[in-house]
């Protein structure tokens, strides 16, 4: 198969996360080839976000192994994952509300005049200009990027969050429900960004409830149910019915009325 020739960028073995008695994620074996775009689908509470949080160092797994870019990794913090090359857009819109757009796009990796570690002096001008470039590249229009995030619509906020991760050279981009809170136009914008990532060969994991979107954008679908991975199918070899059956665990007859379509 084609994907076997390609380098594996991310692999998990027996990845498990328990919160007290809740088995949020259990024994997940997952692989992603370089350049590949995949979706993770599943019902609410299936463990999708939990899986992402383990891979991005937001939480530390109860057990299991994560290999990234050929190495066994042990991310203790999101900073570790970021350093390794994983950029994530979190479901709860991880933006600093009282800062403006350039500050958010560059948060944690600010441009400076010269390096004095954390005491480096900020090069606001450079960040302002680069932010305009980044936003232009992703086709996002924000009238005034000097206003703070809490004065922006959900769509604008999400677009900033996404250009933030897409704007930096990274080895893997992960998006948790990137269009869940967006309108039609904004969703199109985000999908355009995802396509451009594909063209640039940047691998992507996307969690989505929108099966139309999933079928349009990715080549492989991983299905989670009750904390476990219950299936992995290539988009070209499946249809909505099969995915819905996998999601719900009910063999037949769910189809059209399911909310996932």
């Amino acid at each position, binding site marked *: 198969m084609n994907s076997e020739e390609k380098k594996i960028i991310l692999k998990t073995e027996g990845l498990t996360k328990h919160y007290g008695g809740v088995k949020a994620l259990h024994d997940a074996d997952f692989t992603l080839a370089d350049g590949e775009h995949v979706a993770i689908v599943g019902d609410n509470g299936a463990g999708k976000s939990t899986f992402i949080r383990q891979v991005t160092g937001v939480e530390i797994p109860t057990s299991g192994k994560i290999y990234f870019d050929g190495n066994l990794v042990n991310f203790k*913090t999101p900073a570790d994952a970021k350093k390794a090359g994983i950029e994530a857009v979190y479901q709860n819109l991880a933006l600093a509300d009282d800062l403006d757009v350039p500050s958010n796009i560059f948060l944690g990796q600010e441009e400076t005049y010269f390096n004095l570690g954390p005491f480096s002096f900020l090069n606001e001008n450079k960040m302002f200009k680069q932010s305009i470039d980044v936003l232009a590249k992703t086709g996002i229009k924000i009238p005034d990027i000097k206003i703070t995030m809490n004065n922006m619509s959900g769509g604008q906020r999400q677009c900033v969050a996404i250009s933030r991760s897409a704007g930096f050279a990274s080895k893997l981009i992960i998006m948790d429900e990137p269009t869940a809170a967006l309108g039609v136009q904004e969703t199109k914008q985000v999908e355009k960004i995802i396509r451009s990532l594909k063209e640039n060969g940047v691998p992507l994991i996307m969690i989505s409830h929108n099966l139309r979107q999933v079928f349009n954008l990715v080549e492989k679908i991983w299905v989670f149910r009750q904390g476990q991975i219950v299936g992995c199918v290539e988009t070209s070899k499946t249809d909505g019915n099969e995915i819905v059956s996998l999601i719900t665990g009910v063999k037949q007859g769910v189809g059209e009325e399911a909310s996932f379509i």
Partner: protein
Amino acid sequence: MEQKDDTLFIKLIPYIDKYGILLLIAIMLLVLHLLQPDVFFSWRNITNIFKQISWQSMLALGVFMVIVTAGIDLSVGSILMLSLMALAISSRAGLPWQIVVLVAPAVGLVCGMINGLGITILRMPHPFIMTLGTLYIFRGVGNLISGGVPIGGFANQIRSIGNGKIKLEWLYGEGAAQYIPSSLIIIIIIYVIFWIFLNQTKIGKWIYAIGGNPGAARAAGINVNRILVLVYTLCGFLAGIGALILAGRTGSAYPNAGLQSELDAIAAVIIGGASFFGGRGTVLGVFAGVFIMGLLRNGLNLMNVSVFWQQVLIGSIIILAVYIDVLRRQFGTRK
């Protein structure tokens, strides 16, 4: 035409938000000048105001940084007292002034670090708890080491830091009485340094980011705990500087030093327009907040108005300042 008035009012809110505090200061200066035309704008009285607010302005600046991170530090008054006592004891022990001068900032720094480490390592549910604890502990320790009695007699070099005068004879001629208090110079230097720190450096940006959304800061790869420890440590350090200034002003360390001054510091920060919930506020605003409280005290003292009225007025200004913030959030620039 209630509708029309409403919209005009709403339109004014961003301006009130931005310039309201300057307007308030201008009005206060004018009113005080009209009420006390001979005294208020005299060189002596104006320098007095700056001398009076000098040590409080250090506490307020520290508390401001802490509040920007959505935290609180209730212990600054006690840190000030403990630092002052430590200074007095080291001075009494006969240490050279070059050492004594370092004692108060160093003790303050250590106290602040204890707060920061407690909040992060002991995972206190809120900084309120940790610093409420140390509010008692630090003052208790201060009284234990001093025996609960005032200690006086500092070297002139120490006193001149908080009480020094930079004569302006070169400007006003031989024998002129005009001078700039050294404490004003200290305020300016410290405030400029911290303005640069908070507005021009990476850490400054991160401090604001943490207050706005600690999860976002963490996800952006920022070590939130380390920054929090730094912020509380700096807050303690500033309280130590405040102690050094106070040592010069009073010439002795006394058990009630800085009592309840943590509340004045919080009040100044809030009057200065910082959000109590973190993420928002300016260094200049803090200074304005401290200055307003100083003006109020000074003006009311000049007019022999009871100290109880000062309390009523300061309380009212706090509530008014926050109410303007509430309106701003409701109608302001939010779309």
